[in-house]
């Protein structure tokens, strides 16, 4: 069986759905989004969904500024009939060495240079403790804080984009896996889905996280991305005791409280974590995460842990996204966000829609192209776990 589309988007995470919405809004007709599971069932839904201005590279700061602004009025923009559970009480980054504090200070300066209205401030350990009563000050040199940062529900943000895209005519198909991306000569010609059905399309946008590597290989592109497992544990719902998201890059640990009351505790452990498509959680993690997060905030010792899960970062050599067109005409990429992609989806969705439409994107994202790896022009992001 064969069918035709003007564009096919692979991946129903927050990026795929944001691209679908922005393309439809630009007037694209006959756009099909294919998701092998359910919406947000991959990296998007496993993320703790932090949203922050506090990045250390110009491109991420620009994307983040725009994305936070959009998240603030997303329910209105997308006419969502639910809540995206946005909570903006701030994001506290703990520094455990003078070098780390210097880095945060440099990052803040860059953030203010790009947007003079940026609210990031450098705090003393005592000021940090005022924000998080009971914070352990042992070894703490200072912190970076921005009270307009926060977090949201990855499921509802994705659903909000998907609903809006559907209303604008995008055909979102869940439970449909792309087996193969097809190429004719130097250009993309469509996809083959499980069962052999072909969807012919001059445009294919791959937003499938680490799974995108396979699609690249099928059309002769080497996409340097690997899956890396990251895990999260969650406590029972508690009274609102922590408005702020807290993170320590030095320990790879972070925690936040959702508006619903449960606390999410995470640890990134690139040295020991499985680098494969494994989404099972481990006991070792449960011990590590409790040990690390109770070090930062001893009050957590009394909390009941009720569940844990795992998800996949899509890691690239410089921990930055791979975005834009490729040497295969009609084949576009949006992946490799290495753990900070959720929050950037509002801006990147529009950027992608513009690139696919042949227009210059409203944020110049050319430094994130696939070719940067061949050219050795990496853009390492210093502020990520």
């Amino acid at each position, binding site marked *: 069986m064969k069918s035709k589309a003007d564009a096919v988007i692979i991946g129903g995470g927050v990026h795929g759905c944001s691209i679908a919405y922005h393309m439809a809004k630009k007037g694209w007709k006959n756009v099909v989004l294919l998701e092998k599971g359910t919406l*947000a069932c991959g990296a998007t*839904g496993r993320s703790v969904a932090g949203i922050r201005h506090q990045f250390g590279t110009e491109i991420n700061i620009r994307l983040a500024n725009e994305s936070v602004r959009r998240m603030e009025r997303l329910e209105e923009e997308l006419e969502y009939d*639910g809540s995206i559970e946005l909570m903006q009480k701030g994001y506290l980054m703990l520094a455990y060495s003078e070098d780390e504090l210097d880095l945060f200070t440099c990052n803040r300066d860059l953030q203010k240079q790009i947007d003079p209205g940026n609210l990031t401030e450098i705090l003393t350990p005592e000021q940090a403790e005022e924000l998080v009563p009971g914070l352990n000050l042992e070894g703490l040199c200072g912190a970076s804080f921005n009270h307009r940062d926060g977090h949201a529900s990855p499921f509802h943000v994705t659903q909000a984009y998907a609903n809006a895209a559907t209303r604008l005519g995008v055909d979102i198909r869940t439970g449909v896996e792309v087996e193969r991306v097809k190429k004719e000569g130097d250009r993309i010609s469509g996809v083959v889905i499980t069962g052999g059905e072909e969807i012919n399309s001059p445009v294919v946008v791959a937003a499938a996280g680490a799974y995108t590597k396979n699609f690249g290989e099928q059309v002769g592109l080497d996409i340097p991305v690997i899956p890396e497992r990251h895990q999260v544990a*969650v406590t029972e719902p508690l009274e609102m005791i922590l408005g702020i998201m807290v993170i320590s890059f030095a320990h790879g640990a972070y925690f936040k409280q959702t508006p*619903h009351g449960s606390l999410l505790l995470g640890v990134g452990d690139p040295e020991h974590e499985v680098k494969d498509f494994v989404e099972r*959680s481990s006991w070792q993690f*449960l011990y590590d995460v409790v040990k690390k997060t109770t070090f930062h905030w001893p009050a957590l010792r009394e909390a*009941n*842990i*009720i569940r844990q899960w795992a998800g996949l970062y899509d890691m690239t050599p410089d921990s930055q996204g791979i975005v834009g067109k490729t040497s295969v005409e009609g084949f576009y990429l949006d992946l490799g966000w290495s753990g900070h992609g959720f929050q950037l989806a509002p801006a990147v969705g529009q950027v992608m829609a513009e690139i696919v439409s042949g227009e210059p994107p409203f944020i110049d994202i050319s430094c994130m192209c696939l070719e940067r790896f061949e050219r050795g022009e990496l853009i390492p992001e210093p502020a990520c776990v």
Partner: protein
Amino acid sequence: MEDNTIICRCEDLTLADIRAMIKKGFHNPQEIKRLTRCGMGPCQGSTCRELLLKEVAAASGKSIGELEMTTFRPPTKPIKAKSILMGGDHDEI
């Protein structure tokens, strides 16, 4: 009765809440769980999982066996963080 029959005790979800989701087109228990938190509470779905599956099955015309089961997540029962740190047997603390 629909309005006040509790399906998920931990997250305070009623039969009406679940039916509203099904009416919106969500015919996969995983989707309903993720958007409503049905089954994500301290009891880990020990009561509501089956009730949710029954509702979805009835609405979609599928048998429960054909539906995608929501994931059972460790540690199954709530454990105090400090108990994890201390190790030992479960009755010691």
